[in-house]
């Protein structure tokens, strides 16, 4: 399976690639600040990201233009997904789905 540049960018996040993917999934529903993202991700993936991990992933996503900050609400700053972020998310989810399909097919014939 050939990887695109955008897909490879998420790979380069290292240990932050999974949190970054979860953040993109959370933000595709609508803009959220840090705490709302943590709660949403805990709900969808049963995984509570620590503050350091969450902001490590946010900084990486923002530096690549995959998410962007909005006007601050008091101390909190909501983020929204960009068009590039949506594209990256779509590519990554398709790749995951393909791997899952192959895995399930092999499990069925095992």
């Amino acid at each position, binding site marked *: 399976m050939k990887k695109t540049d955008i897909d490879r960018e998420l790979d*380069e996040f290292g240990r932050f690639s999974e949190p970054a993917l979860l953040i993109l999934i959370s933000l595709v529903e609508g803009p959220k*600040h*840090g*705490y709302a993202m*943590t709660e949403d991700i805990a709900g969808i993936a049963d995984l509570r990201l*620590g*503050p*350091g*991990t*969450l*902001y*490590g992933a*946010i*900084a*990486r996503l*923002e*530096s690549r233009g995959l998410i*962007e*900050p*909005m*006007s*601050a609400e*008091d*101390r*909190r*700053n909501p983020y*929204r997904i960009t068009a590039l972020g949506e594209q990256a998310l779509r590519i990554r989810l398709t790749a995951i789905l393909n791997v899952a399909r192959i895995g399930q097919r092999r499990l069925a014939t095992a």
Partner: protein
Amino acid sequence: MTVLLKLYPPSWRRRYGEELGALIDAQPVSIGNTIDVISGAIDAWIHPQLIAIIQPATTAKGEKPMSAENLRFRCAGYQPHITRTDQRKSAATMLIATVVLSLGWMWLHVRTHGAPYVDAFSLMPFLAGWLLSMRYTYLKERSGPAQAIFMAGSIGILTLLFGLAGWITSRI
């Protein structure tokens, strides 16, 4: 636990400090969160390029002012996209240049029997190697002449400083 924010680099705190502080305040204090914030601070020091971009203030409509967009590209916030290959090339350049230049310096040191001018340049191999490695990191995506001017200029300034140190040492 917000006292742990002081472990982050100042530039990182300026950009994310307030919101990270708000998130830490909203969560219960735990060993897991403390370790997570500390490891986040280590990561922020290791990857300063993540917040090198000047973050422009967004307007009410979420549009970025043009001056801020220009600053993003013109000022210290310049941020090249450094891949793992670039990091490897940079490390290899630094290592090879440092070893080769160190061998050259050692040869000169032996030939001149430890002359003060030669001894003054003992740190030069490492610094020159570091400057040359910048071609793949900080100077990436800059034009060839800009890279050459930066590296040659920096090495020139270092040569003057080390030469001055050698001159002072030879006078003592």
